[in-house]
């Protein structure tokens, strides 16, 4: 609401000078965001060349092709994986972010540092680290065996759980940070007010704290669900080609398949799904911007 008002006010005040200052931003956005997107949409309606390249002949075949069982199945699989990953990430990330916001100032800083630390290392390298942990003679099996919890080493590497673990690992910080930023803003006197008005601790959490941190949770869901359909390198490295994600498919069509129009059509569908999710988020939370992104 507030954002809307201030925006309309400022646009009324636009003078030539301010337009001059904003212009570079518009040009930049036009060249590097709008143009590539338009190119991608146009490409998705073009015909792939006989050997490689693109023939600019209008067709809907690229979209029709998505409905073929092989490709449709990729979408279903990606969705399933995204749902599973997001579920685990929510279960771990929500309490983490919520209680992090309750820490004293010093504790918050430390937790934030620990959370940011992995970002300073390339995510590919970090994923290779997981291979060392998860492989047959890896750290995890070693520890479990020493504790006498298992007889034979677990085969986690190159399986579905390995991909889920990878997804959780890479995407968890986004959930934690968006829940945290929402819980940080929560006025704890509201919780006290609920308690004062007759709510038990659980009831006060549910009716007030949870309700008011829901925007953070939902934006966390968006920030994890969408990438987890597309992070093909996780599926490649930890899953060993067992699961093909939409992201993998796009990459495949771009490189080996040499079918750019089909890749573009897939990307357009992904973009539409993402947009729908953000619209849904806005409807549920009444927020104009996604928490933690805004």
């Amino acid at each position, binding site marked *: 609401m507030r954002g809307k008002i201030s925006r309309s006010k400022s646009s009324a005040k636009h003078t030539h000078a301010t337009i001059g200052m904003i212009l570079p931003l518009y040009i930049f956005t036009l060249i590097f965001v709008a143009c590539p997107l338009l190119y991608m949409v146009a490409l998705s309606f073009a015909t792939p060349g006989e050997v490689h390249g693109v023939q600019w002949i209008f067709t809907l075949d690229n979209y029709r092709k998505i409905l073929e069982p092989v490709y449709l199945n990729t979408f279903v699989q990606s969705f399933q994986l995204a749902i599973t990953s997001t579920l685990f990430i929510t279960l771990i990330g929500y309490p983490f972010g919520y209680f992090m916001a309750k820490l004293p100032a010093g504790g918050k800083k430390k937790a934030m540092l620990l959370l940011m630390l992995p970002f300073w290392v390339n995510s590919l390298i970090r994923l290779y680290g997981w291979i060392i942990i998860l492989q047959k003679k890896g750290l995890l099996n070693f520890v479990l065996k020493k504790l006498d919890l298992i007889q034979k080493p677990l085969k986690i590497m190159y399986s579905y759980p390995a991909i889920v673990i990878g997804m959780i690992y890479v995407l968890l910080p986004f959930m934690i940070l968006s829940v945290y930023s929402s819980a940080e803003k929560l*006025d704890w006197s509201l919780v*006290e007010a609920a*308690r004062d*008005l*007759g709510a038990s601790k659980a009831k006060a959490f549910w009716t007030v704290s949870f309700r008011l941190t829901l925007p953070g949770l939902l934006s966390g869901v968006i920030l994890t669900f969408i990438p987890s359909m597309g992070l093909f390198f996780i599926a490649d490295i930890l899953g060993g080609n067992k699961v093909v994600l939409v992201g993998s498919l796009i990459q495949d069509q771009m490189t080996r398949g040499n079918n750019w129009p089909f890749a573009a059509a897939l990307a357009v569908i992904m973009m539409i799904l993402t947009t729908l999710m953000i619209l849904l988020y806005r409807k549920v939370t009444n927020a104009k911007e996604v928490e933690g992104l805004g």
Partner: protein
Amino acid sequence: MNKLIELKNLTKNFDDQQVLRGINLDIYENEFLTLLGPSGCGKTTTLRIIAGFEEPSGGEVLFNGIEISKLPPYKREVNTVFQKYALFPHLNVAENIGFGLNLKKMDKDVIAQKVRKMLKMVGLEGFEKRDVTLLSGGQQQRVAIARALVNEPKILLLDEPLGALDAKIRKQMQIELKKIQQEVGITFIYVTHDQEEALSMSDTVVVMNNGEIQQIGSPTDIYNEPENRFVAGFIGESNIIEGIMIRDYLVQFDGFEFECVDKGFEDNEEIEVVLRPEDLDIVEPSQAKINGVVRNVTFKGVHYEILVETELRTYKVQTTDYAEVGRQVGLKFGPEDIHVMYRMGAY
């Protein structure tokens, strides 16, 4: 009147800091009681202990004679109006007010009816569907009061509820709060650092400082008969003068003896005297014992505030008569204007 709350030797420590140092206080049914003191005096902590948000480190909290200091807030027949109202931003006015009733699983129609009645009482009829975040401070305040009172508590706790309002609405809300309290006929425990607010609304004022109660009494008692230098200094403006109580009804200060109306002190006890600025009159030097020179005159609207420098100190005088700077004047006051109090440690 029945005793509703008894605080017995209440103490509270936060880490190694002692915030309450033995509070003993009885609160009665239908009483408007104000905890008054500077910030950090322990008034809010006392309130939060009664509400159940803090557990005392020592001592007892009795409610109708039953110890309740371990009882969680939602099991107490007490509701709170918070400093910044703490209205739920995701609920509208009616949902905010009905929050407590909803938790009690009350019938929807009954809730709607009670909410309407409350809105009428606080003067917000027809506001049911409004967004609480778009209300003015005064309106939010009224919603907060309605939200607490709709649960029919035995006691309403108010934690500096007018602190965020501007002066004009404050005055208006003071009158309305008092009216509401008389209308619902329950005990109000009110926390404030504003002495004027305390004096104008309360039946009983409890002056606190440094985790201790300084004085308990009616607004007139507190103002006219402050028990010590702290109370006299905190409530209203005053001239505080060290003196000696020669015997009952005779006090000596500034080198003169004065008749007074106080008794019950020991003969020749060292005491302090309060002279309220509005009780002092400026007269010709020959008509008064204490003489001095006018050093400063400030126009305050209703009266002038005049600083008179005497041999030993500077007196503050509030009078409607003008006296120009540099004039030799006498300070006149009657026996009933002298308030004698016990001398306390360094302040």
